[in-house]
């Protein structure tokens, strides 16, 4: 029974976001749809866009199917440049290794830039519970940190919040004027709040968008420059990198960097695209924690390894009509939206068993993906998995047991049609529109089952 308590009820969470007020969900939908529209305009401005997507997909598939070689090449090249590489098999390893590095450097105050991998490993609470003071430096991540929430979007962590929410939060947490709701001034206030923390920090933690096997270098893309300050000021830089981030060659970056920001936000490039080639001079250290945390296991799954191609652009989230109505918070997971649905169950298929059903299967995610991940198809495959492990909704399971028999038998199907006609005809409105029993009728009029079916008509008019 333990998993039942833990299970994420994504439908309920999404309904809460929709019914919260008339502002949050429509604003969320509008902002993300605008990102999708900007992405379309960017794509249209590049004649070779479709070739780029095909090529990126092929490079990712090549890299992942030769990952053992590329991991080795990357580690050797990075080590040669003076970077210290650590291997983490699990999230616990990842967190422990980082803590040990910090401890051996007497580092108790750290700044960090955005890293989905560190989120995935739940690193922040791990370090904080061991006395490390940790500050998120990405604006969206800092907002989420101050709110005690997970990021709700891969590249826009606080996109579910309005300016009013941020004004209220900053007034409460960093002492801004509660009536000041000017986005620029609020950003400036946080900038001033964060600056001294960079200067005081003993270590800076980043993630990486891409790692290059042939050089041992890695690339971090941001729009705020916070990763650059994080890496450039403190004497110790630790980067968490998932093994799937490795690309074979430096020249591949030309392709992936062109795709990333255009797909994510509809901008030609991120404001900062920083290449880290090795430790800085003057005795600073650079550590990489190369992390598996379930990736090689996923790579071995014939149906599900494709999700490892993901470059974390968030285009599938921006286009997803269900995500735009739900907010990322509803998914109760590090990764939300369509890509989250196919990644989260690889970590825990009981806790996230309802996520694959939180989709209208419209398929836009598959079509928008810059590396051609078959997301919608994988959502269906995850549904099959949930049915197999009996983690789908029991009510659906019983309904389909009945439907499966009815649809398999013409005779019983005809009887059910007639039963439906008379049943709905005779049932009073209070029953048909009962909000608990009938989810259709809560906000929709019921369609009428006809007395004369098409088949009845056909037999009467065409069969001699």
């Amino acid at each position: 029974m333990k998993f039942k308590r833990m299970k994420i009820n994504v439908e309920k969470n999404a309904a809460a976001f929709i019914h919260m007020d008339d502002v949050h969900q429509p604003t969320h939908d509008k902002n993300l749809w605008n990102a999708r529209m900007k992405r379309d305009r960017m794509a249209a401005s590049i004649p070779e866009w479709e070739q780029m997507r095909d090529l990126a997909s092929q490079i990712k598939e090549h890299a992942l199917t030769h990952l053992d070689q590329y991991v080795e090449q990357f580690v050797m090249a990075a080590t040669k440049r003076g970077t210290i590489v650590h291997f983490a098999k699990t999230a616990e390893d990842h967190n422990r290794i980082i803590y040990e590095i910090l401890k051996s450097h007497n580092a108790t105050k750290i700044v960090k830039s955005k890293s989905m991998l560190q989120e995935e490993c739940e690193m922040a609470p791990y370090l904080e519970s061991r006395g490390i003071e940790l500050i998120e430096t990405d604006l969206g991540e800092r907002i989420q940190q101050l709110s005690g929430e997970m990021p709700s979007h891969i590249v826009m962590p606080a996109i579910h919040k309005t300016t009013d929410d941020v004004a209220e939060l900053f007034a409460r947490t960093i002492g801004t004027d509660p009536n000041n709701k000017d986005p620029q001034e609020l950003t400036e206030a946080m900038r001033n709040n964060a600056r001294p923390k960079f200067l005081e920090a003993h270590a800076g933690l980043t993630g990486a968008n891409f790692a290059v096997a042939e050089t041992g270098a890695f690339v971090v893309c941001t729009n705020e420059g916070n990763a650059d300050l994080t890496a450039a000021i403190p004497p110790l830089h630790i980067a968490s990198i998932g093994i799937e981030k490795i690309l074979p060659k430096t020249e591949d970056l030309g392709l992936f960097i062109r795709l990333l920001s255009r797909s994510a936000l509809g901008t030609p490039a991120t404001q900062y695209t920083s290449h880290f080639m090795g430790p800085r001079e003057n005795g600073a250290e650079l550590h990489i924690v190369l992390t598996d945390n379930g990736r090689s296991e996923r790579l071995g799954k014939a149906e599900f390894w494709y999700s490892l191609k993901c470059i974390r652009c968030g285009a599938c989230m921006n286009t997803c009509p269900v995500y735009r109505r739900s907010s990322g918070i509803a998914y109760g997971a590090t990764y939300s939206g369509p890509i989250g649905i196919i990644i989260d169950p690889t970590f825990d298929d009981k806790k996230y068993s309802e996520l694959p059903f939180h989709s209208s299967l419209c398929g836009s995610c598959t079509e928008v993906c810059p590396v051609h991940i078959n997301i919608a198809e994988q959502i269906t495959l995850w549904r099959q998995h949930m049915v197999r492990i009996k983690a789908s909704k029991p009510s659906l399971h019983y309904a389909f047991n009945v439907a499966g028999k009815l649809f398999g038998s013409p005779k019983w199907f005809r009887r059910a049609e007639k039963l439906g006609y008379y049943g709905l005809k005779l049932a009073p409105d209070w029953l048909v529109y009962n909000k608990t029993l009938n989810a259709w009728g809560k906000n929709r009029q019921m369609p009428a089952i006809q007395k004369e079916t098409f088949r009845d008509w056909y037999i009467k008019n065409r069969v001699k």
Partner: protein
Amino acid sequence: MRVGLFIPCYIDAIYPKVGIATLELLEKLGVEVIVPLDQTCCGQPMGNEGDQKNAAAAEALFCKNFEGFDYIVGPAGSCVKHVRQHFDAIPQTTQVQQIRKNTFELVEFLTDVLQVSEFPWTSFNHSVAIHNSCSAIRGLHIQSRSEWQEPRFNKTEELLHKVSGVTVKHLDRPDECCGFGGTFCVTDEAVSVKMGQDKVADYERQEVAYVVSPDMSCLMHQQGIAERDKSPLKFVHIAQVLNNGPY
């Protein structure tokens, strides 16, 4: 040309006029149409939810009913998409593969197989919005996909332009899902309804009188929302427009 007419379960029971319009239209176009009387459902509701075991009986029955036709035509994009692209709860024999390959949605059958150039027996003096379902767009490709840099086309719209009197208006979000999604519309009620309400609001912004679609299942959901909100919008299947009723 012998065509087996595939009338999905919900059209049989709820929208018999769509079945009649499709049958009459194909007959007018000189096609020999046969309706297998033992048909029920293609298995999509179960298949979509991942329940392969319970989809198998429906899929097997579908094949039994539709063996031996030159084409199988159905006025429902999502059901046809299930047959063509999923439909793998049963063993994939040569016969099953043949049936899947020959199954067409009505709009694509009229456009690509029959290549119909005119519908002189009908007229429709209304401003209309088109709803091509996600299955029809991204699955069957009856319309270009906005996510792709590819030549723009819309087979439904091209057919409607051949009907006298029709004015087609375009939506702000032409290929945004309406939130029907099969079982999703009841398991995820709040999100489904919100998506439907946003879709209906888009129609209302364009001030159209009718919504025309090759997929009645999406319209069932959209119509339910529009009626609850006392909207004057009317919803019809494209077969009804092309055949001149019955409405």
